């Protein structure tokens, strides 16, 4: 009994101490990922920018919820947003998610609103009630079209707080699938199999169309396919039944389960493997070097900068881009990577401290910073960023190197 009393008292003390230690939340926000050297702080604009009423533009709080920074893509998102925040004198409020369940998304958004965010980047969120809540609270939001259901449209269309939805079906997924498949075909694959999420998933269907088109255009044969969510099992099935027939495999997968399956089957020397989503932040370079991975994609973090600027424009009262319902915004795509050098370049000059776009690229989208261009010109500029002519490593790396002062 004494022991239990002591434990109860310790419990109460721990609760009090742990909560009292919470205190100020300053200092940690926007500090970047674990591997962020933090050496490339962008220069703030030399002159203060003001709006028509003489108020200084900036100083807003933008909320962002995603996985913790231990996730590679999350760390890249953090760096990209920190960069945008620094050049616009804003602050990012981060909320770490453990899962992407609807309940947790709701809690994330509600918490960010409670902490005084002026706008929220909605990486996920299909609850109409959530958008109603943000409308009521006067919080701006920008999302992705995966969240733009018919029910959500009824709530957000016409709302002044709706800053638009990045159009994930604007062709990018088709191009990604096409480029990855084309890459392994050009490396010698003639009989390929593909794996993707279940039929009906918009992103997966587009990528599969890309796989099929690449095969048709480049004279390769699609031998078999798998549509489902269990890529490890799907890969094992394909490799055990048709592994000796195929010399190429493309997958709309995440992680390195398929690479592991190919290794287990002893077919890593005979099958060229392309995966749309990079297997992992730490091992992809090695996979590319050793040939376990023949093609993947990178540069899929910068689109959060577009979402940031849509919010920044709205909150600052600047001209809004793509402001006609449905507010669909072309999305900066990923690009194909076929070797470790390209992967390292992508990580450094697109996923690093500078998100592939330099300050003048980003600020050119805001009419307070660039009053001499029209809305249409700004929209053309943002659209230009999303084209493969602009958004490729050959163009991005020299520009970012020059900005960083590297040779």
């Amino acid at each position, binding site marked *: 009994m004494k022991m239990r009393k002591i434990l109860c008292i310790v419990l109460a003390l721990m609760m009090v101490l742990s909560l009292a230690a*919470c205190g100020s939340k300053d200092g940690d926000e926007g500090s970047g990922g674990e591997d962020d050297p933090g050496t490339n702080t962008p220069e703030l604009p030399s002159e203060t920018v003001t709006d028509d009423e003489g108020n200084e533009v900036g100083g807003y709080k933008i909320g962002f919820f995603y996985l913790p920074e231990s996730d590679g893509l999350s760390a890249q998102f953090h760096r990209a947003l920190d960069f945008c925040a620094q050049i616009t004198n804003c602050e990012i409020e981060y909320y770490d998610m453990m899962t992407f369940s609807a309940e947790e998304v709701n809690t994330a958004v509600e918490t960010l609103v409670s902490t005084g965010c002026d706008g929220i980047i909605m990486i996920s969120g299909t*609850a109409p009630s959530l958008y109603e809540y943000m409308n009521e609270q006067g919080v701006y939001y920008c999302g992705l079209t995966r969240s733009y259901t018919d029910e959500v449209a009824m709530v957000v269309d016409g709302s002044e707080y709706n800053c638009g939805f990045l159009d994930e079906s604007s062709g990018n997924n088709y191009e990604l699938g096409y480029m990855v498949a084309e890459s392994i075909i050009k490396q010698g694959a003639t009989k390929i199999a593909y794996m993707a999420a279940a039929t009906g998933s918009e992103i997966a269907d587009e990528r599969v169309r890309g796989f099929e088109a690449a095969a048709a255009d480049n004279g390769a044969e699609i031998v078999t396919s798998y549509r489902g969510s269990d890529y490890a099992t799907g890969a094992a099935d394909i490799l055990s039944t048709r592994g000796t027939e195929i010399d190429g495999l493309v997958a709309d997968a995440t992680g390195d389960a398929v690479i592991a399956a190919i290794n287990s089957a002893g077919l890593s020397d005979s099958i060229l493997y392309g995966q749309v989503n990079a297997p992992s932040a730490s091992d992809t370079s090695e996979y590319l070097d050793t040939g376990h991975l023949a093609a993947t994609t990178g540069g899929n973090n910068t689109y959060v900068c577009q979402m940031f600027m849509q919010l920044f424009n709205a909150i600052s009262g600047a001209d809004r881009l793509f402001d006609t319902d449905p507010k669909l915004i072309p999305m900066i795509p990923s690009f194909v990577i076929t070797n470790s050098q390209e992967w390292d370049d992508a990580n450094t000059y697109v996923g690093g401290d500078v998100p592939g776009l330099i300050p003048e690229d980003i600020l050119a989208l805001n009419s307070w910073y660039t009053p001499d261009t029209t809305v249409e010109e700004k929209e053309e500029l943002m659209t230009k960023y999303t084209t493969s002519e602009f958004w490729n490593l050959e163009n991005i790396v020299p520009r970012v190197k020059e900005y960083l002062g590297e040779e």
Partner: protein
Amino acid sequence: MDTETVKKNANRTEEEIQEELIRRQKRKETITSILPVVGLVVLVVLFTVLTKGQFIGMDNLKLLVNQCFTMCVIVVGGAFLYSIGGLDMAIGAIMALSATVLTLAFNAGVPFVISFLIGVVVSVACMSVTAFIRNYLKVTPFIASLCMMNICQGLVLTAIASTGRIVFNYSQAAWVDDTVTKIITLVLLIFVGYVLFNYTSIGKSLKAIGGNATAARISGIKVEKMVFIAYAIVGITIAIGGLFTVVRSGVADNTLGTGLNLNVMTAIVLGGFPLTGGANAKFHAPLIGALTVTVLTNGLGLLGQANAMGYAIKGLLFIIVVASTYEKSKGKLIS
């Protein structure tokens, strides 16, 4: 027992020893029932002070209602299940399945009430299967619930396979997500649950089964029937929780109900409800626990603390409370 206690007891009468044992037991029960309430009050005061009153502002109180609603609804039914020591890992998956079926029906044009009742039937049926396995196949209910969890997850994945999710017709049922609707629903549920648990033979029988199933059987309680009733009650509350959750989230997908099992267990434990059930099971305990979990998450969020810290603190509290209150004399924690 040490030498001093033995010597002390030797000079006392049996009645004195009995009285002291009863006093100790009452003190323990008092502490067990008061401590969670004190903890909750302390948390509320602490967060109110640290957030300069924002925590108890009207906006945040509405958020608290929204955030704790589903858990409170389910723990109302969970009290009946846990009073017989029925640890269940399928609650989240069954809620997902119930919500998915309900959504399919509603989207197909079935009237709202009928769609809801279909969801209830699905949920109660799933829980009944677990009860059947427990009663007649004599499988540990924890294991049976794990199997049911996998079955339900598989069914949900099959139902949403073509699109990855099913969008709920929110515009036709937006009133369900209203704060007033939720408060009324919760108050009614708590009232009905309280009466059933404390003033009917159902509650008393379930606590007796949780205390000692053999003794309960010998004393005339139809154990299997009562177990079915307990599972059916929690099935009903799961369906209600599923309805409100799918309306709030806007879609039925395989992430619905994620984390609910652990949150319900944490709520049960933090409220001082014994995991093995029995006579010490108090109806209000899981509700206090559910509020504590929600207050903790909400308060930490307002203070700008990482969500991960909330998980860590909840896990730590869970271990400490279980370790300090678990009745070791009963043997296994999971029956």
